[in-house]
C-alpha cells in the first residue's frame, strides 16, 4: 500500500507535540480512498456515518436534510436551554421576573430566549415535515417499519417538550394554555383525571405544576428524546442507510462487477447497504462460524478504482451536513435578531385572555376541542397516532420506495396528504379565524 493511513510516533523530544496530536487524530487528512475510509471509520464523531453513502441518499431534493435539521435544532435547543437554566427559577413568584431579567439585565438573555423559542417552533415544524417526507417517499416500508414507529414517538416527545416548555415563562399565555391542555388530558377515559392530577401535582395549575413541568422539560423529556433519537440514527445504519429505489442498486451493464470483487482481495471496507442488496446476501445458517463481515447483511463495497453508486462520506456527506448545520444555525440567529419571543402579562388566575389560545401547533387540536372535548382532544388524536404507528405494518408492498409521489402509491399518498392538509387547515382556522369567545372572525 503506497498511501499512508496511520502514523507511527516519531522519536525525539521535538516530536512531542506532533505525537500528542496524532495520538488523538489517528489519520492524516485523507488523500486516498483508503484514507477517506479510515478517517470516517476511526473518528468517534464521524463513525456514526457509514464510510460510503449511496449517491441517491446525498441528493438534496430527496431528503431536504429535514431529519438532520431537526437534530441540529435539538442541539441548539439543548445548548440555549442549558444556558437559560442558569438564570431561571421554577417558582410562581419568581419565574416571570426572571423572564424580565433576561430582557433587561442578563447579557444575551433576550437573544438566547429568542433562539430557544424559535428553534422550538422550528423543530415542531421540521419534525412534522420530516415525517411527511418519509411517508411521501415510501421510506417506512420494511425493513424500516420500526424506525418509522420510533419517528412517531419522537414526534410525540417533541410535542410534549414544547408543551411543558410553554408553561415556564409563567405569563398569561402559558397559564391558560396549560390549563386548557391539561383539562384535555382529563377527558381521557378511566385514567384521565389521574393523569391530570399527576401532571399538575394539584387540582389546578400552580406551583406544583410549574415545578413538575420544569423537571419534565429540562431533565426527563430531553433524556427520553436523546435515547429515542440515538436508536433512530442507529436503525438507519442497521436498515442499510436511507431508503432508495430498488433500481438504484441494480447492476446495470456492469456484469464484470461480480468478477472484480473476487479478484481484488486487498483490504475492503464492508458496509451494509439497502434492503435490495441485502436480499442478494446469502442467508445465515446455524452451526457455522462467521467472521464479523459475514454477519453484515449486504455485499462488499470496493474501495479501489471500481465504479459504484456510492460516494465516500468524507468529504461528500460531511460537507453536506456542515452546510445544513450552518444554514440551520444562521436561520435561527437571524430570526432571533429580528423577532422577540412573545411575553404576555404575568399570570392572572382570575382573568383568562380572550380568546385563550394555545401555541400554533396545538391550535388544530384546540379547534377540534371547540366542537367536542373528548373527540377533539382525546378520541381523534389517539386514533390518528394509532393509525400512524400502524402504517408500516399495514402498507408493506415494496413499491415506490425512495421516490417522491410514486405513481404506485397514489392512494397511500393521497390519504396521507388529506390527513396533513386537514390538520394544517384546522391550525390555520384556529390561528387566524378565531376571535373572542372562540367565535368565527375574518382576519381581513
Amino acid at each position, binding site marked *: 500500500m503506497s498511501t499512508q493511513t496511520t502514523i507511527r510516533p516519531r522519536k525525539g523530544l521535538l516530536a512531542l507535540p506532533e505525537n500528542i496530536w496524532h495520538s488523538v487524530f489517528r489519520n492524516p487528512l485523507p488523500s486516498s480512498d483508503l484514507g477517506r475510509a479510515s478517517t470516517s471509520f476511526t473518528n468517534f464523531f464521524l463513525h456514526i456515518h457509514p464510510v460510503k453513502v449511496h449517491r441517491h441518499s446525498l441528493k438534496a431534493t430527496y431528503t431536504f436534510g429535514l431529519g438532520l435539521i431537526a437534530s441540529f435544532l435539538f442541539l441548539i435547543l439543548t445548548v440555549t436551554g442549558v444556558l437559560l437554566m442558569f438564570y431561571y427559577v421554577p417558582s410562581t413568584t419568581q419565574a416571570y421576573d426572571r423572564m424580565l431579567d433576561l430582557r433587561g439585565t442578563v447579557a444575551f438573555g433576550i437573544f438566547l430566549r429568542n433562539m430557544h423559542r424559535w428553534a422550538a417552533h422550528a423543530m415542531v415544524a421540521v419534525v412534522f415535515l420530516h415525517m411527511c417526507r418519509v411517508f411521501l417517499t415510501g421510506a417506512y416500508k420494511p425493513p424500516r417499519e420500526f424506525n418509522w414507529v420510533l419517528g412517531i414517538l419522537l414526534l410525540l416527545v417533541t410535542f410534549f417538550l414544547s408543551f411543558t416548555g410553554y408553561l415556564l415563562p409563567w405569563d398569561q399565555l402559558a397559564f*391558560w394554555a396549560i*390549563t*386548557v391542555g*391539561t*383539562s*384535555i388530558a*382529563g377527558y381521557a377515559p378511566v385514567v384521565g383525571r389521574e393523569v391530570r*392530577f*399527576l401532571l399538575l*401535582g*394539584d*387540582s*389546578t395549575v*400552580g*406551583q*406544583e405544576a410549574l415545578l*413538575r413541568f420544569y423537571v419534565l422539560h429540562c431533565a426527563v423529556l430531553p433524556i427520553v428524546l436523546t435515547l429515542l433519537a440515538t436508536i433512530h440514527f442507529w436503525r438507519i445504519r442497521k436498515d442499510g442507510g436511507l431508503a432508495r429505489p430498488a433500481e438504484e442498486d441494480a447492476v446495470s451493464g456492469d456484469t464484470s462487477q461480480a468478477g472484480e470483487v473476487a479478484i481484488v482481495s486487498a483490504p475492503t471496507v464492508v458496509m451494509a447497504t439497502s434492503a435490495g442488496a441485502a436480499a442478494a446476501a446469502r442467508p445465515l445458517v446455524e452451526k457455522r462460524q462467521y467472521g464479523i463481515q459475514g454477519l453484515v447483511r449486504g455485499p462488499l463495497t470496493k474501495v479501489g478504482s471500481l465504479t459504484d453508486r456510492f460516494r465516500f462520506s468524507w468529504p461528500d456527506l460531511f460537507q453536506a451536513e456542515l452546510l445544513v448545520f450552518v444554514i440551520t444555525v444562521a436561520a435561527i440567529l437571524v430570526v432571533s435578531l429580528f423577532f422577540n419571543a412573545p411575553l404576555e402579562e404575568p399570570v392572572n*388566575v*382570575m*382573568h*383568562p*385572555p*380572550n*380568546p*385563550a389560545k394555545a401555541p400554533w401547533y396545538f391550535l388544530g387540536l*384546540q379547534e377540534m*376541542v*371547540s*366542537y*367536542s*372535548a*373528548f373527540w*377533539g*382532544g382525546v378520541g381523534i388524536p389517539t386514533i390518528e397516532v394509532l393509525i400512524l404507528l400502524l402504517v408500516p405494518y399495514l402498507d408493506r408492498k415494496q413499491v415506490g420506495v425512495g421516490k417522491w409521489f410514486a405513481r404506485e402509491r397514489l392512494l397511500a399518498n393521497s390519504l396521507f396528504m388529506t390527513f396533513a392538509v386537514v390538520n394544517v387547515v384546522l391550525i390555520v382556522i384556529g390561528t387566524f379565524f378565531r376571535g*373572542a*369567545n*372562540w*367565535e368565527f372572525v375574518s382576519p381581513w
Partner: protein
Amino acid sequence: MTKNPMKPVAEETEGGVTRRTMLSWLSGFGLLGSLIIAALANFVFIKPRATYGQPNRFSIGKPEEFPSGARISLDTRRVCIVRDGDKVAAISTTCTHLGCIVGVSETGFACPCHGSRFDQDGNVTGGPAPRPLQWYQVSLAPNGELEVDKDNEIEVGTYLKV
C-alpha cells in the same frame, strides 16, 4: 459428543419440568415483578399526598352582603354567589369544558376560551361544554356567615333559604 450445557436433555424432562426450567421461570417472574413494582412505586412517589392549593370549604360572609338579585362572581374562589329573594346558591365558574373561568353575562355565563354559553342556572345553552356548571352546597355557619363547600356538589336549582 459433548452435551450443550444450556439445553436440558429430553429424557430428564419426561413428564415434568426440570429444575433448571423451573428456576428460570421463577427468576424471570422475580425480575419482571421487581421491575413492575419499581415502576409503580414511581407513580406512588409522584402522586402528592398533600396539596398546597386553596381549601375547598370557605366562608363568604354574611347573607346581607348579597342583596336580592345579586350575581357576584368570586373569581379567586371560582364560584358565583347567586341571591334571589331569600334564596342563596353557589354556582361554579369553572367551565365544565376545559377549566377556564366563565364570566357573568346578561344571559347567564359565557366562557372566553371555547365559546361555551350557560343560562342563569348554569345549564348549557351553546358551545362545547358537556355538562351544566356545578352547584355547590351553601350552608349557614353558627357564626352567621355563609359557607360554601366545593367538595359537596348539589343538584342544579337547589337553594339555601336564609
